[in-house]
């Protein structure tokens, strides 16, 4: 048998992936850690050791606390919207519906729209206080149009991001629903289980795993929402819509403060890892090699 040979070949085949990912993960992360301990500004040629100074600066910066809070609000709100409406819409689409395929296509479409497009379409075509469609709709009902990005900037960002991620939840949950054992459903029906019984004892437990996967994957992406803020509010007004990702970006590429931005970067990595650990546990369970 060619076992020995195969083993050797297997190792050679997998080596490039491992080496590249190792470089990709360790080199920049080590550099971030190193920079975070330096007084390093791109505009200033003198670089000195800062110890924990950058962390102290970053953590005591009021913008940091508010950006952390903004990040949590954004992630939490979008998660709540996409989990709640995701389940509802997935259940709805699982019914007998005329033209279900078309409805399904319409529902998942926003997920494929690039973030800069969805943000600008919402900001201009829909949310503009004078010519936006929402303003027209508000006036139709005799209400004063809302100046979205001035009056409720964070809510506006949440709406845009939720519009992109709700379809993701629908797509995953619907796929999971359709794999729900029909026989089990039939049996429950035979036993005289009402719709609520069936939902709480059969459907919801079945959705628990895909739902937790949706939540964890969205968390990882939502923690670093960037383009939507970049093209709409630029983090403002003030720092009202500045999340952690945007704050780090502005420290690094707008203020050229590499040290502080790196400290912020490491903090973001730690936060993302908390969500990642849970996700990996769930995904890992599915892994039978």
């Amino acid at each position: 048998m060619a076992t020995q040979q195969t083993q050797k070949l297997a190792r050679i085949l997998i080596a490039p992936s491992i080496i590249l990912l190792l470089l990709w993960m360790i080199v920049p992360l080590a550099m971030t850690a190193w920079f975070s301990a330096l007084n390093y500004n791109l505009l200033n040629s003198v670089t000195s050791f800062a110890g924990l100074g950058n962390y102290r600066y970053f953590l005591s910066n009021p913008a940091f606390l508010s950006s952390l809070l903004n990040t949590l609000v954004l992630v939490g709100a979008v998660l709540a919207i996409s989990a709640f409406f995701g389940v509802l819409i997935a259940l709805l689409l699982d019914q007998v519906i005329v033209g279900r395929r078309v409805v399904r296509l319409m529902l998942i479409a926003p997920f494929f729209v690039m973030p800069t497009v969805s943000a600008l379409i919402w900001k201009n075509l829909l949310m503009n206080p004078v010519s936006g469609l929402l303003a027209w709709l508000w006036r139709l009902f005799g209400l004063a149009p809302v100046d979205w990005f001035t009056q409720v900037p964070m809510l506006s960002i949440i709406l845009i991001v939720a519009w992109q991620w709700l379809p993701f939840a629908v797509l995953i949950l619907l796929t999971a629903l359709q794999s729900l054992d029909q026989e089990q459903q039939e049996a429950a029906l035979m036993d005289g289980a009402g719709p609520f019984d069936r939902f709480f004892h059969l459907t919801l437990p079945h959705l628990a795993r895909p739902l937790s996967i949706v939540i964890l994957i969205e968390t990882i992406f939502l923690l670093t929402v960037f383009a939507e803020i970049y093209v709409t509010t630029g983090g403002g007004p003030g720092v009202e819509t500045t999340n952690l990702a945007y704050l780090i970006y502005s420290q690094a590429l707008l203020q050229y403060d590499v040290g502080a931005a790196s400290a912020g970067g490491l903090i973001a990595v730690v936060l993302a890892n908390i969500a990642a650990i849970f996700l990996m546990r769930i995904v890992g369970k599915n892994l039978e090699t």
Partner: protein
Amino acid sequence: MARRTPVPRIVLTSVVAWTVGLVIFFPILWMLLTSFKTELAAFSSSPSFLFFHWTTENYVAVWTRSNYLEYAWNSVVIALGSTLVALAISVPAAWSMAFSPTKRTRGILMWMLSTKMLPPVGVLVPIYLLYRDAGLLDTRLGLVIVLCLSNLPIMVWLLFNYFKDIPKDILEAARMDGATIGKEIVYILAPMAVPGIASALLLNVILAWNEAFWSLNLTSSHAAPLTAFIASYASPEGLFWAKLSAASTMAIAPILVLGWFCQKQLVRGLTFGAVK
């Protein structure tokens, strides 16, 4: 189900479902309509839905005036380039893990997944500085490298997921019949692996096409893909809504169609095989 759903119920759920679907799809539809309006009509505060003067002047304008083709070409090169390089690296890896798993395979897969959890903003500064020093800022090669590496874990996972479902008995049988490794791959494994590779390719093209974080931060003019081109419409000077809509429609159309066709593979890829 064997039971037939009563007609009034079908009507009711259909009406509700279509309403929800249309509401969620509406921004895209509105963008499409606006792209056929004149700038004046697009900016009007009393919008018209169908009865406006339809024009294709915006498409012509975007196409001819704003180097649209250059941006689109950058998108194509970056999306396809990063995908093909990632495939070349990930197919052998997924292959070897699916067919000769060792005690460490599980650990390696989990570790690869963990690299995907790294928020890009955590390594923005060093990548930016390395790129600046290596002359990779605002180059297509630079973006190809970053996107290839950042999507590599997803590719390995998705491919591994497909490959491990290929029955291994077939290989045994072929070996008994005296097939060499080369023949084994060409005649038996390759045909069975094609669907997996195709869906990994599609998923990666979609992800790379829509990627915005690295595209916005690492490019300015030469290598800017469509995501960055659209972002240039954010500047407040002059409101070109109809042109923004036309450019956006062209930018998202190919991916929307692609996404619609490969929903199932997407679910599998995006959940790392946990939902099929």
